[in-house]
């Protein structure tokens, strides 16, 4: 707008009390060196929902630039258990992006889920927790948590539920989602292998007559192999991913956690 009206000869006349040009308070020649509150700590996460389970996974490398800060830094957290060791938790949160914000986000959501549980005498449902997480993220809309979150659990019917988020709280329930540094490498693989995208029944026709391969829920063993393959692929092509694979499987009987090795180069 400033540029538009500065062309106007009228502007050389009286000025008005609103000012549409940005004012600079800094003294002449002063260089403003601003502190950057964000960094990217790399890493990748992944979640797949099954018929009666959800598998969550993430690598355990923590980077800053080309340095590996830690080879064992978990990105998956059990949420809303009644004790410090979270052994009766029913939900899992994965965070990737800026590690300090991820940690802060996890701690806030955990406290809220714990309070809910103590007040109501039952764990928070996946759906309720998912909405609450969105609200937490949006509350910091103008100084966001720089973290890509995925929330995993079981829905009211006992089916696997995966909710994925952007840093400011947009969310949706999905069958599967990859997040973080290697999301663009893993997600197409998942589209093909979980949702059977671009898979057609051979000889079923030409062009539009081609029939899509029918979707079916994957078995837990298949999903676990898929997750390992996805990360082995990502490790090969992305320098910020590697060291270890943390995997959590959420079923009606609780949460199982395993650590598998990944390439450390």
């Amino acid at each position: 707008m400033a540029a538009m009206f500065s062309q106007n000869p009228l502007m050389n006349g009286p000025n008005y009390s609103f000012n549409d040009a940005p004012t600079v308070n800094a003294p002449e020649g002063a260089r403003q060196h601003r502190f950057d509150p964000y960094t990217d700590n790399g890493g990748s996460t992944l979640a797949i929902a099954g018929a009666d389970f959800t598998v969550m996974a993430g690598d355990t490398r923590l980077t800053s630039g080309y340095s590996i800060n830690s080879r064992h830094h978990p990105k998956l957290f059990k949420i809303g258990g009644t004790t410090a060791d979270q052994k009766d938790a029913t939900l899992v949160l994965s965070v990737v992006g800026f590690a300090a914000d991820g940690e802060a986000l996890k701690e806030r959501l955990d406290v809220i889920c714990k309070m809910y549980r103590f007040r109501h005498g039952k764990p928070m449902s996946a759906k309720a927790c998912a909405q609450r997480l969105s609200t937490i993220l949006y509350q910091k809309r103008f100084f966001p948590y720089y973290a890509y979150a995925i929330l995993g659990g079981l829905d009211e019917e006992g089916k696997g539920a995966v909710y994925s988020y952007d840093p400011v709280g947009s969310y949706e329930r999905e069958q599967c989602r990859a997040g973080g540094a290697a999301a663009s490498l893993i997600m197409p693989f998942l589209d093909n292998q979980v949702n059977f995208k671009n898979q057609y029944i051979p000889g079923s026709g030409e062009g539009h007559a081609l029939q899509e391969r029918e979707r079916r829920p994957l078995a837990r063993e298949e999903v676990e192999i898929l997750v390992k393959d996805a990360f082995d692929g990502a490790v090969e092509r992305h320098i910020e991913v590697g060291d270890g694979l943390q995997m959590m499987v959420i079923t009606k009987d609780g949460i199982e956690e395993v650590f598998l090795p990944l390439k450390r180069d």
Partner: protein
Amino acid sequence: MDHRPQAWGRPRDDVYGAYDASYLNHSAPKTATQSPIVTGTSVIAIKFKDGVVMAADNLASYGSLARFTDVKRLRTFLSASVVGFGGDVSDMQFLDRHLNELAIDEAYEHETTASVSGPAPGQLNAANLHKYLSKLMYRRRNDFDPLWNQILVAGVDGAQQPFLASVDLRGTTFTSPSLATGFGAMLAQPIMRRYAATEEDAAKLTRDQAVDIVKECMKVLFYRDARSLDRYSIAVVTREGVELKEDEQLEKQSWAFAERIRGYGTQTV
């Protein structure tokens, strides 16, 4: 007729004078460190069987000037933990005063029996202290008023196991069998990882081995880090407490390698 609807109904400057918007332009929020001035270089630390060894040299640089050559960058906390500071020295001194206050409060709340060294039960252990510092640092980064340090915290955790963790100016925290800040992350960390790649490897190291590794790393850092010094502090922290030596001299230096490297020292040809 003014054709800009924004201007309609507003007081004109030629009639009322320019609007005094000074009360709207409150100056930038009060912040301390916007960039580090006097700085300390690397801090390095490695876990061993029953504790942690940490070291940092005694130099505080002003840019490339070796300004203060007797600055102690390791401090103990409640005779139970060691904190090592890299980065801005004035922020380190602020944190040092803050931790002194905290230690006094802790000592009043949980009285120790004088005969026992090390932490009293119920007092803040290294894991607690690290959590405290990480919350402090993260809060300051949220206020856009960061404490420009990378900090290593060493000691034993609640389960009496060796504990080593890091926190930086943005509140990022992580742990590892060995840790190094600044230049040490490039030069010392690969050496330390050769001996303690995993927690299991670290649990096999003896105290003497760990001390030797750290001393070797300090030597490599002095060879290659231009903002380093050959006088350093080294601390060994175990369940029994802290042994801190603050005026050590690098031993067995050999500069023979320098002759073979073009551009390293005085060039004759």
